[in-house]
């Protein structure tokens, strides 16, 4: 089982519903976010292209945060979800500096926090909060090892990219383009 997420950049309108849903579901402290919207404009005026992405922890298969953690607080859970065990985190911030996506932050209580793919929902067979509320159905979540899962089918039929794969992280959040 390899959990992954795909965000359809052709459908995402940047409404931030995913951000609000995550904050509500996971009780994310005020002023912090586990997922966020990035708008990237490229090209030569007047021919400009706009890409809107809903971003979060990439749950890398070769996660630098897990590698640099001195206490095993950052670890791989079932399905390759990267999690932080609060009671093992010492707040050294090595994982924060090692993440090329800057996906982690310090929770006001001192431990390091980030997207969990809503593991509490996934364990019950539900979709992560962000995926479940997306009004344009721009997000797909599922198991890459199951060829019949909606994410495997989307990845097989659509063009996709991941973010800075050259950093060697083997990210598990993909962007359909």
């Amino acid at each position, binding site marked *: 089982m390899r959990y992954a997420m795909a965000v359809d950049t052709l459908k995402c309108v940047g409404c931030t519903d995913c951000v609000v849903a995550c904050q509500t579901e996971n009780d994310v402290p005020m002023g912090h*976010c586990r997922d966020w*919207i990035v708008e990237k404009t490229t090209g030569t005026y007047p021919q400009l292209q706009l890409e809107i992405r809903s971003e979060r922890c990439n749950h890398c298969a070769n996660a630098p945060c897990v590698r640099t953690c*001195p206490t095993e607080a950052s670890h791989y859970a079932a399905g390759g979800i990267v999690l932080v065990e609060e009671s093992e985190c010492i707040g050294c911030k090595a994982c924060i500096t090692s993440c090329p996506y800057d996906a982690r932050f310090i929770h006001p209580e001192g431990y390091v926090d980030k997207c969990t793919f809503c593991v509490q929902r996934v364990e019950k067979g539900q979709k992560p909060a962000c995926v479940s509320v997306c009004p344009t159905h721009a997000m797909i979540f599922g198991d890459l090892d199951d060829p019949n899962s909606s994410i495997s089918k989307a990845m097989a039929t659509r063009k996709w990219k991941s973010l800075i794969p050259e950093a060697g992280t083997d990210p598990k959040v993909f962007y359909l383009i």
Partner: protein
Amino acid sequence: MIEEIITSGRMNPEIDPVLHVWGWEIPFYLFLGGLSAGILIFSAYFTLRNRQDELPIAVKWMPIAVPFLIGIGLISLLLDLSHVLYAWQLFTNIRWESPMSWGAWTLMLITPLSIIWVATWMEDIFPNWDWKFEEAKTAVNWLKSQRRLLAQVLILLSIILGMYTGILLSAFNARPFWNTSILGPLFLTSGLSASAALISFFSRTEVEKRLFTRIDIILIGIELFMIIHLFMGHLAGTQVHIQAAKMFLGGAYTVSFWVFVVGLGLILPVILEILELKHKFIPAIVPVVLIVAGNLMLRFIVVNAGQASRWLY
């Protein structure tokens, strides 16, 4: 003109707009760790060469400072931890891939060992020293007989301590400026250089003073060579490495690095030390202050610049 504008809705404290999770505590500790490593390496090395009576400051006196330096370093490390009550978790795990785990375990071993090392020299330093308890006297006498073994272990652990302070940073490929394997040797050399300068300053004999001034000149030469290589490596690297190097070649860190670290912290003191060897009168305090300040600044600038360098996507 090709435009590329990235707008992010994320504004996490200490992460955005520029990463700044590590403040003064980490570079200050890296400096103290490097200095401690340097002092212990010289002390242990010249003990193995049987030069303890010829070089008393380097071998016997300077190590007294090490437990205090490491102690202050540990306090500043603890101040940096945001979940400090769980710090003991460092010692319930051994993580080979994590430089921070290496550092924690090295400190765990080297701190008591440095105290033991000082204890074996107490009677040499203070002729009237009395251990008060017979057991303590016996233990110290036994440790004295094991001094060569102690020195060998100390050299190994000190090299790890001096190197890992750089490797800690170079292990993060997310921060392109840090992501160069030369940081480990550079920090080790700079720690050795600061301790050689301090030994030379405190030494009371011409032999010891001149030896450590000569050692320091060589070390500063190696440091300058490594700094040039650091930038050569970055400039021959990928786009993000080139961008990271440009922070020092016209960017925000240009003046602070080249004027204060390289100019005032390396080149000027090395010239003064060469003049000193040629028997020109140079107030001894000047080169040592410049070198130590340059050393500290090197670590502050490297820690800050690394956090400011990143991948763009």
